[in-house]
């Protein structure tokens, strides 16, 4: 599977990663290599195979609807890059 610059730009945007022209070129090559290796799975016939997302045979794990203490505002904001009062502050979001 070969991918091009357009593909890299598309997935870099999906990934919210900014790439320089040089990086785009590097990743086009590297990802193409990796994808052509990965592509070997397509040679297998998996027509009657169910996809497996979980390795353990278990289900129905729940918690009860019982409150637990939240953490202090100090801890909430301890690692925050920017705050304003009780809020987290971010660059303006335009909808």
């Amino acid at each position, binding site marked *: 599977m070969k991918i091009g610059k357009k593909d890299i730009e598309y997935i870099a945007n*999906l990934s*919210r990663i900014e790439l320089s022209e040089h990086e785009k070129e590097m990743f086009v090559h590297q990802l193409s290599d990796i994808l052509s290796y990965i592509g070997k799975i397509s040679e297998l016939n998996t027509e009657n195979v169910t996809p497996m*997302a*979980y390795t*353990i045979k*278990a*289900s*129905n*794990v*729940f*918690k*009860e*609807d*019982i*409150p*637990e*203490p*939240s*953490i202090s*505002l100090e801890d*909430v*904001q301890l690692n925050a890059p920017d705050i*304003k009062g*009780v*809020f*987290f*502050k*971010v*660059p*303006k*979001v335009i*909808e």
Partner: protein
Amino acid sequence: MEYEVIVGLETHAELATITKLFCGCSTKFGVEPNTQVCPVCLGMPGVLPVMNKKAFEYALKAAIALNCRIDEFTNFDRKSYYYPDLPKNYQISQNYYNLGVDGYMDISVNGTIRRIRIHNVHLEEEAGKLIHPEEISADYSLVDFNRAGVPLLEIVSYPDMRNVDEVESYMQTLRKILLYAEISDCKMQEGSLRFEASISLRKKGSDKLGNRVEIKNLNSMKSVLKAIEYEAKRQSEVLDRGGTVDRETRLWDEVSEKSARMRSKEEAQDYRYFPEPDLLPVLINEKWLSAIKASIPELPRERKQRFMEVFKLSDYDAGVITEEKVLADFFDECVKILDRPKAICNWIINDLLREVKDKKLDINNLPIKAKQLAVLVEIIEKGTISSTIAKEVFSEMIQTGKGPQTIIEEKKLVQISDEGLIEAVITKVISSNPDAIEDYKKGKKNALTFLVGQVMKETKGKANPKIVNEILAKKVGI
């Protein structure tokens, strides 16, 4: 050109749990920002979700109430998109195996029943809240994560609605079902019930659907209806000009009552759904399902039916009473105390509802208790007070919250049925109104009504009108 409007709705309802979907934080509304959060709902590194059983069961209830097919297997998926109020930048939702599919809801429009199909019902997590400062020049936004992780039910309809009446009925009916089944408090002003509409047009008689436009940011049912009308008009104008409607997402602006493009189909989100590895699947067996089924209270349609059959209420009365679950509950409670359904129903519809409307009261916070209304009706029936006095007592009840008996005692409003006492008053009234007697004898029948009025006035309305009429008739010699 004449067009048919095709509308589908996506509804989000916050579930009535006391804790969030994946952590133990409280879901209480209106508390100080960022105080109902923990590492889990803040999406801190290393945390994991654990599903709230109550929330899952509420969603199951909804799926049952909306006549969905519920498969044995369901699981959760991650839906990825970047937004600052979404802590993990993915939402835990359902995509490949929705909890309920292929359901329907019957709605009533101008007396006829329409069946609107439900595509799916699923469970997901709520996002936080983004606050934009008042000053337009401000270069920042603020985030509060208190709502992040609150359990959310999503109900997706098929595009089966054809006009705003149907849309309105759909919204109202759905709201009622969620309230009756005690799944959500459906407080639109608190954002716990929200709608998104998708609208397309098609030429009358044609079966070719036009491009679909999605409308977001609809903060009230009124906005939904206005936005649909606006969008139908906009699309028909585009088509009439010979243009094509772009497939896009638009944002409704409540102030200008217009919508504007948010993103086009080309910019459509690529959500990259895949199974949430941190949550295991849920298997729903028959036993569990029937227990949930049994836990669903009577839904609005059955409730109305019962009120008509058991209590002989008219279709109209039963409709009004069941419009709001609190009213229907109130009614049920009243008739349990006093078996006078018709009288109670009248008091609720004519008096209680008027008070609520006039004083703009919150329907969820009725100003009197069922017991109080039942006692009032009982007192009237016993003849302790007249219905005129009863109105006065009722309004006092609303104002003070006191019970009818207390008010009657305090204000000495007990009806006078002592014949001797009444006769004395009548004698006095007759002697001071000789003209009226004359008029009556000349054939003026309403002179008698005047005299009754005078007696009532003398007794401050407390005289038993039946006895007054009887004695007066005797006195004037009928």
